[in-house]
């Protein structure tokens, strides 16, 4: 039984094979013509590509490569260390990380005494402001702040705080922190900045202008001397504008806070302003590297110390 089945199968296979051979024979006859046509056509294409088809040749279209332009704050991107490394500074500071090394926890005070009493009453300790104490030397008389020669431009005091920030000086251990996204300036903000910067004034020759790299070098040199009021309450509102009158050698001649009113009534602003003034007087960052031939451009500078992006 098994054998006869195999026999039938064998017959079927044989007849199938025969049919295939027949088909192949007719196919090969018609394919020959196709091969020839195809070969001619290919040869024509190769020839055309080698020789060229003059009547089809047109002037090559001018390729327009799209240029993407992104409006960003240039200071975020430029690396100006090579342009003008700060002179007196041994170690350029990493700005991204706060400078304070995390010291190992230290004892606050050794040997606490076990004797204690209530703090003495206020009446016992009377503070007296020493306006001109008898021992006081008259020499370092507190000079009143120099008046700015020009009236400061009225500027809105309160800055828009940014929700998220980069370059933060505040520590965050959050395991799921997703909020810290860099914020780019919106077009409106860029426009505002540009319009503000191009406010009325004399027109200087292009060659007299400070280049972006020169300005960046200036900023880079001043950065390590500016101690930012990072943990202060609402520090994002503590931007301080200082008018600096420069000497030709790059040292600071005079510096004064533009917003005198706020300096006198807001102690946090006063501390932030003092910190900015100290940055300008710090010997580590003085004299400032500015091109002497462009002195006319930088003999008076208004510097806006703005901590917003670091909080």
């Amino acid at each position, binding site marked *: 039984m098994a054998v006869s089945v195999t026999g039938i199968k064998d017959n079927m296979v044989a007849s199938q094979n025969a049919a295939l051979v027949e088909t192949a024979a007719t196919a090969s006859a018609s394919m020959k013509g196709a091969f020839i046509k195809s070969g001619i056509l290919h040869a024509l294409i190769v020839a055309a590509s080698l020789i060229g088809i003059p009547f089809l040749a047109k002037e090559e279209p001018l390729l327009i490569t799209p240029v993407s332009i992104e*409006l960003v704050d240039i*200071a975020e991107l430029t690396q100006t260390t090579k342009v003008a490394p700060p002179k007196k500074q041994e170690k350029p500071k990493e*700005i991204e990380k706060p*400078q*304070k090394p*995390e010291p190992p*926890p230290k*004892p606050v*005070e050794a040997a*606490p005494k*076990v*004797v204690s009493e*209530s*703090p*003495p009453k206020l009446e*016992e*300790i*009377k*503070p007296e*402001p*020493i306006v001109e*104490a008898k021992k*006081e030397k008259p*020499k*370092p008389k507190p000079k009143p702040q120099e008046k700015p020669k020009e009236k400061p431009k009225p500027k809105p005091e309160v800055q828009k705080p940014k929700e998220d920030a980069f*370059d933060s*000086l505040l*520590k*965050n*251990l*959050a395991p799921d922190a997703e*909020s810290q996204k860099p914020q780019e300036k919106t077009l409106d903000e860029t*426009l505002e900045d*540009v319009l503000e*910067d*191009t*406010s009325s004034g004399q*027109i200087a020759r*292009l060659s007299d202008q*400070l280049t972006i790299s020169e300005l960046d070098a200036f900023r880079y040199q*001043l*950065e*390590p001397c*500016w*101690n*930012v009021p*990072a*943990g202060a309450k609402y520090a994002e509102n503590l931007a301080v504008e200082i008018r600096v009158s420069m000497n030709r050698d790059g040292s600071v001649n005079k510096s004064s806070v533009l917003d005198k009113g706020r300096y006198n009534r807001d*102690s*946090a602003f006063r*501390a*932030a302003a003092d910190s900015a*003034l*100290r940055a300008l*007087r710090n*010997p580590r960052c003085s004299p400032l590297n500015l091109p002497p031939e462009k002195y006319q451009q930088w003999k*008076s*500078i208004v510097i*806006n110390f703005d901590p917003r*992006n670091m909080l």
Partner: protein
Amino acid sequence: MRVLFALFLIAFLPAVAQAELRVDMTKGVVEPLPIAITPFYVESGNQNFGKDMPSVISVNLENSGLFKPVNPRAFVQTIESLNTAGPNFGEWRASGAQALVTGTVKAAGDGRTRVEFFLYDVFSQQKMLGIAYTTTPKNWRRIAHIISDEIYKRLTGEDSYFDSRIVYVAESGPWNKRIKRLAIMDQDGANHKYLTSGRSLVLTPRFSPTRQQITYMSYESGKPTVYLYDISTGRHEPLGRFPGMTFAPRFSPDGKSVIMSMARNGNTDIYVMPLGSRTPKRITNSSSIDTAPSYSPDGRQIVFESDRGGSQQLYTMDSNGDNVQRITFGKGRYANPVWSPRGDLIAFTRMYKGKFYIGVIRPDGKGERLISNAYHVEGPTWSPNGRVLSYFKERPAGKNRQAKIYTVDITGYNERWLRTPVDGSDPAWSPLNR
């Protein structure tokens, strides 16, 4: 169109630049301010004050993390010369100092001591402060704290915290038979003193913002009950007789009432207890566990923890219980919220994936930052100026198991161990001593 306009303006910016150059500084550093604190010149009276007072000031300022006292070996000018000729600013600048503190001490004649101090800005060569104090000599340490406060205030523009104290739970004995006592000390660890005997367990002490009083939870009566402790007399008493357990107490900002949790019939809600009438008033009324309430400094709002939304999260509400808003949405659990005396932040403990964190968040629920973590870290408390947080950390059970109190700046840096004679937990910072 506006893009084109912006490009146009930028392209032609150099040609239309202003007469005065404007520069935006958007980067800087955070580093301690170098300050020279000279020995005080003692004209008459206790010679030790000349050395001891500047030393206390120096430790205070350095611990804050915002100042770096200059090594006295870098000093060139002598205190005698300072006293007669005034500061030679060139020499002080050369020492690296940006600020300079000098002082004189003399006997006032009536048994009291007069201390004068001056703060100078070395770069601008200007005097920033000059204040004199006259007091009994035994107050020398407090004077040093008050001087530290003045320097801190002038240079940071913020209120200070050195003339303050910390009450905490002092822990001793084996872990299965732990003795927990209330203890108090100056914020720098000096003048340490135990307040309770340790016979009964005490937890969660909190300072009154206005008077020398502490509220805490104790098992003295057998069940958890909120107590009041008067520091000046040493007297303590239960806040009231309650039908249920009371815990997690905190004073209102005016010091006239205590807000706390009470568990009744298996449900925990928040109650306010005026210290005058002693009649508790219920603030929350939900079937969930509402606890750990803390007032905003203006007394208008309360932050608390609740599991009403499923997981344990932080909520704010008006002081009458209206307008409940959830402010945390992170993973894990949030607990122990405490509103900063500055008003701008709320500190909390967060538990996530088996770890504990201390964090801060703005009252509107934005800007969450976690600033310390450990196997177990809990119980944040604010310095009176809202700049420093204190909390305790525990190491896991085992040979090195211990509980220690730490402080950290709210930037998240400068974490320091606050040394106590025995283990410590649950710190609570006092307001300024004045």
